[in-house]
């Protein structure tokens, strides 16, 4: 909400979120099998430092940290968008069956013994296929409503779930761990950080001027139309954008759960309901959460690596429940 005192509060919010983002990224590159001191990180950033540290930071940890940050941001923004679209705070990026489609694509690629790049490509194709399927079916013969979209998505997701179970049941035992890790979300599948980073940056640019229209849409389609919003094109636009963001995220890291549901919700409890604030804040907070979760996943049981989705859920569930318990909703 605008205003003088809230202006100050918002500056503070951004300051905190940006500092926390930098801190999370720094932590992610510093911590691991070999801990790198802050001064050494600065040295590497200046283009100096030991060759081992340069390799560790620039080639291994930084790309993974960036990929985790961007993936978290994508999922949180997609979640915030889906929640406005369906006017349901419980919606998440996966509710419309996207991750199911991506998972079937990825598992099929793994079953056929394809390489990581092809697994990513196949996951992306699966996510888009699922989007188109829900998009087409939800239109139906009658009028289009969020309820119909939601139901179509949930049923399609259930269908994918059955296909996934079938594939897991039929697959040879030695392939199972990889498949399970993918299903829980795992940053070690991230190849290059640039697709998610660029997608997130583009999405934020696109969404910055759209914040208020989304606020209006959240008040219901009739009210939005009465306030001059072209509701149908806006709804399809949000759906397609949120699907693309999710597809890129799932392609990068498998189906990481919980970020898209929890981050926008936590932010709303703290920052209010203005999408102009929530969307960029979700990009940062989602990034922070997933970066920290991935750092934990790499280090908690080192040298074993946990799937990051386990950590996001284990961190997210209690935090979320606590905030919900404390809130006056």
């Amino acid at each position, binding site marked *: *909400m*605008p*205003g003088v005192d809230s202006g100050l509060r918002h500056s503070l919010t951004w300051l905190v979120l940006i500092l926390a983002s930098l801190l999370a990224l720094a932590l992610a590159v510093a911590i691991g099998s070999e801990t790198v001191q802050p001064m050494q990180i600065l040295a590497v950033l200046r283009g100096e430092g030991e060759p081992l540290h340069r390799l560790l930071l620039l080639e291994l940890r930084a790309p993974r940290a960036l990929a985790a940050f961007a993936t978290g941001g994508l999922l949180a923004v997609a979640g915030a968008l889906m*929640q*406005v679209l369906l*006017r*349901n*705070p419980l919606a998440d990026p996966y509710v419309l069956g996207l991750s199911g489609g991506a998972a079937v694509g990825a598992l099929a690629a793994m079953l056929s013994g394809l390489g990581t790049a092809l697994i990513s490509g196949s996951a992306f194709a699966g996510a888009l296929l699922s989007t188109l399927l829900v998009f087409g079916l939800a239109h139906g013969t009658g009028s289009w409503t969020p309820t119909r979209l939601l139901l179509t998505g949930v049923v399609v997701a259930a269908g994918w779930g059955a296909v996934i179970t079938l594939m897991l049941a039929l697959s040879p035992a030695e392939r199972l761990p990889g498949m399970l890790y993918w299903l829980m979300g795992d940053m070690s599948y991230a190849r290059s950080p640039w697709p998610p980073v660029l997608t997130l940056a583009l999405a934020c640019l696109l969404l910055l*001027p*759209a914040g*208020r*229209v989304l*606020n*209006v849409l*959240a*008040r*219901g*389609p*009739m*009210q939005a*139309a*009465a*306030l*001059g*919003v*072209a509701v149908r094109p806006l709804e399809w636009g949000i759906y397609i954008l949120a699907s693309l963001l999710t597809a890129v995220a799932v392609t990068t890291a498998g189906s990481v759960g919980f970020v898209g549901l929890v981050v926008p919700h936590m932010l*709303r409890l703290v920052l*209010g*309901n*203005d999408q*102009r604030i929530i969307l960029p804040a979700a990009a940062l907070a989602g990034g922070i959460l997933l970066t920290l979760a991935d750092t934990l996943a790499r280090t908690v049981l080192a040298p074993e690596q946990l799937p990051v989705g386990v950590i996001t859920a284990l961190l997210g569930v209690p935090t979320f429940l606590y905030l919900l318990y404390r809130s*006056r*909703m």
Partner: protein
Amino acid sequence: MVLETCDLVVDVPGRADGRALNLHIAPGQVWGVLGPNGAGKTTLLHTLAGLRPPRGGTVLLDKAPLPRWRRRALAQQLAVIFQERQDGFPATVMETVLIGRHPFLSPWQMESAADLALAEAALSQLDLLPLRDRLVNTLSGGERQRVAVALALTQTPAVWLADEPTNHLDLHHQVAVMTLLHQQARDGRAVVMCLHDLNLAARWCDHLLLLYPDGEACWGPTDDMLVPGALEKLYDQRLAVGEVDGVRVFVAR
């Protein structure tokens, strides 16, 4: 700004065309739309707002058919108070009311101090200032109804289309909202509202439109329309008529 209809037939599913409406709603007038449940009052209101295409005829605002208006320009002139609202998604009272400024702001613009002042004034007029930071979905039905009126007030429309604006309101706030709408008309705006309460219509409306379930309709100045026989036929209900403070009062027998 004059709102007119030219041979308008409202698209109520499964009903014959009935009588085409030729209304002339001028600034300063308060129109009441009366009719039993399912007579098409809400559908008419949505059609007048351009939210629903008519089966036949046209709606004209300022002599231009609604489809020729740009949505945003239309929203700057015309506000709708809906009967059923979808305020399940969280937002505070102030955030909700500020939404009324949306048609006047470009995508990059934040609400100005003037917009904020308009919203504050609307909240104050509807006794909502103490609730400004409450979430709308935690309010009572009557409070939500006042939020909806405040939203429309913040939109500063030339034409008000209100679907049962006194829904859920206690007696005091019924009078407050009707006074507000009446004052809006005196300030040169046009007001159209669907009502169920004949007594509110008798006291506050200067024109009435009676909608019958079969699509028949008649309209005119309130004094000509509030004929007990016609009203009994409209609602299929016998009425007793009295007079209090020079205003006719209707009670169901």
